[in-house]
């Protein structure tokens, strides 16, 4: 076992880029992302659809198809570089060291294989155990993800269970071999609202009990608010703001983060209040805009934003980084917003949306 450096971070990602070769050109789905994650901690990755958060988690795990995908940079797990490893070499890590819970439990389980088998096959692959032991382990895993009558469930097929139950099965599969790192890719997006919190709490409980690190990918800032230690906000394949959760909510600097938070419906608003939205769409990742990628949709946008891309700069609080020339809540930012209001300047995307 590689318990060699219990002191270093579990996961170190440096300058990771993932590009897809398409007929239109190179799609920069993930572009120069760096992050670290310590044992037992949770990193929330937040962004809207198409921001590259799912591709990022699959790039780290090396679960993308081989053809047409170019990855560069570095991914270290417990100090070992795993980015260049082949699928064959990655098999030692998949399931055993790092596991993933997928977005849609309705399609993530094999419809023609019994649930018990789907759990035990990974166990039998990674751990040298008897069939009987693997079955007992599967049963106790089902019990630990709070599935009633776990013994009977082992012999059932996925279509006999509800979506929430299936996601619990997926969680049991992910937990089966005791991974150190768990990726949860929008684990509750496809579920009924009533079971979303249950499933998230279950994941958090198991994470704490097993001292796993977790990367929780979501489009919903509300989901990561109480659960993540740190939050990375992604936009157009880049991290645009990264901070400990408390810092981020107290003192967000990036207008995109602010806009994401504003678009969450609030309970204390009157009913029928129009929901805040972010005008426009994420940029075309084949020909990204030259300056800040969010500039076309930003309320704070100035000349400089369109021409020059802001670097990831450190904020006042430790661990806080953001990409912005006119950060929220700073004199420059306030001035930029005031100037835009004075001159009646609206973001390009909002103007386009207005015309449409």
């Amino acid at each position, binding site marked *: 076992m590689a318990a060699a450096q219990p002191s270093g971070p579990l996961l170190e990602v440096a300058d990771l880029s993932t590009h897809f070769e398409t007929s239109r050109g190179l799609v920069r789905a993930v572009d120069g992302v760096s992050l670290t994650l310590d044992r037992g901690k949770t990193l929330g990755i937040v962004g809207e659809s198409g921001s590259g958060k799912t591709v990022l988690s699959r790039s780290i795990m090396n679960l993308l198809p081989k053809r047409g995908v170019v990855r560069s940079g570095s991914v270290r797990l417990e100090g070992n570089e795993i980015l260049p490893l082949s699928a064959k070499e*990655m098999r030692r890590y998949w399931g055993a060291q790092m*596991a993933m819970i997928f977005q*849609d439990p309705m*399609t*993530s389980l*094999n*419809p023609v294989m019994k649930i018990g088998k789907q759990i035990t*096959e990974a166990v039998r692959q990674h751990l040298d155990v008897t069939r009987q032991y693997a079955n007992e382990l599967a049963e106790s895993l089902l019990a630990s993800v709070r599935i009633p009558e776990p013994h009977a469930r082992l012999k059932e097929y996925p279509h006999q269970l509800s979506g929430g139950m299936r996601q619990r099965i997926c969680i049991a*599969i992910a937990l089966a071999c005791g991974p150190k790192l768990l990726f949860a890719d929008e684990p509750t997006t496809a579920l009924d609202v009533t079971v979303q919190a249950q499933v998230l709490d279950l994941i958090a409980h198991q994470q704490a009990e097993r001292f796993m690190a977790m990367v929780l990918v979501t489009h919903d800032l509300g989901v990561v608010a109480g659960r993540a230690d740190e939050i990375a906000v992604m936009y157009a394949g880049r991290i645009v703001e990264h901070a400990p959760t408390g810092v981020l909510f107290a003192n967000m600097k990036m207008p995109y983060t602010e806009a994401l938070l504003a678009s969450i419906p609030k309970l204390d608003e009157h009913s029928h209040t129009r929901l805040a939205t972010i005008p426009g769409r994420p940029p075309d990742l084949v020909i990204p805009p030259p300056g800040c990628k969010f500039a076309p949709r930003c309320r704070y946008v100035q000349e400089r934003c369109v021409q020059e891309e802001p670097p990831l700069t450190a904020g006042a609080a430790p661990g806080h980084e953001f990409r912005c020339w006119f950060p929220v809540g700073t004199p420059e930012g306030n001035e930029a917003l005031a100037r835009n209001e004075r001159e009646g300047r609206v973001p390009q995307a909002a103007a386009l949306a207005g015309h449409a």
Partner: protein
Amino acid sequence: MRTELLRFIARRLVQLVIVLFVVSIFTFLLIRLLPGDPVQTIIPFAKGPQFAKERAQLRRDLGLNKSLLGQYWSYVIGLLQGHLGHQYSSGLPVSTLVDQSLPVSLQLMIYAQVISLVFAIPLGILAAYRAGTKTDSAINTSSFALLALPNFVLALFLSFLIGAKLHWLPTAGYAPGWLDQFFDGSQHMQLGQHLTDMILPSVTLAVGQIAVYMRLLRSDMIATLQENFITLAKAKGITNRRILWRHALRPSSLTMLTVAGLNVGTLIGGAIVVEVIYDLPGMGEKIFQAVESRSYVELQSYVVVIAVLFVVVNFLVDFLYAVLDPRIRRARTPA
């Protein structure tokens, strides 16, 4: 789960009976719709009016004096008791001829299906896994080349090269196999000789099917490999071999199986050619002879046997669906 499966089978059995009933009507009418009079075929009018008495006798023997419904009734009762009529030239009961020839053709078709599937499944999996690569196009091109080869050309080529030139395998003759004794108790199994005799005919019949099955499996498999559950299986760290064979094959094989079932018709057509060329005493050869000698009654019986075979095989395919995909067991199919 078990009761679900049983209920599924029961539902399908009811359908099977209905289909067989329809088949019996059609084969019965088929012969009645043919131009000409069977009596006139057996005792031509050209022979002169002095045979009128014999003709009337024959008409009674054949039951043709009864009403159409009456004829159908005795026909169905006969079928249910296993009476298929008599071959007019020899006077032998057709059921005896079927007992002798059906197992030959059945075994030929089983071997052909097994051979083509044994080649098509791994090739289809490999082609899907390596879709778009040189391996994929090599598999496609070569299997299509084999598909384009007519089976009578292949039969002649194989019997010339392997049989006549190299003397590796016999090109004609037949020894009873494992199935013959169940139809005709007088046959004694000579498995070694049987298998040697059957290699060339089975391969000839199988070759054209490989491309068909391979292509169907390949395209379904490519779709299956895009599924989320395949990514999840990969994320579990199980081997590629296991992902392909245990996870992807089963849900990808339904179209291929459907066609394999329907292909029984094609195979019977192919068996006629193959049996004639390799001199096998099977149904194909019997049908060929019956067509040549216009033995309609005999032919009608073969049509019934083939139709029943076809329906039963496709019933088995339906049953296989339910075994392969548990979701189908629940589906309510309109009976």
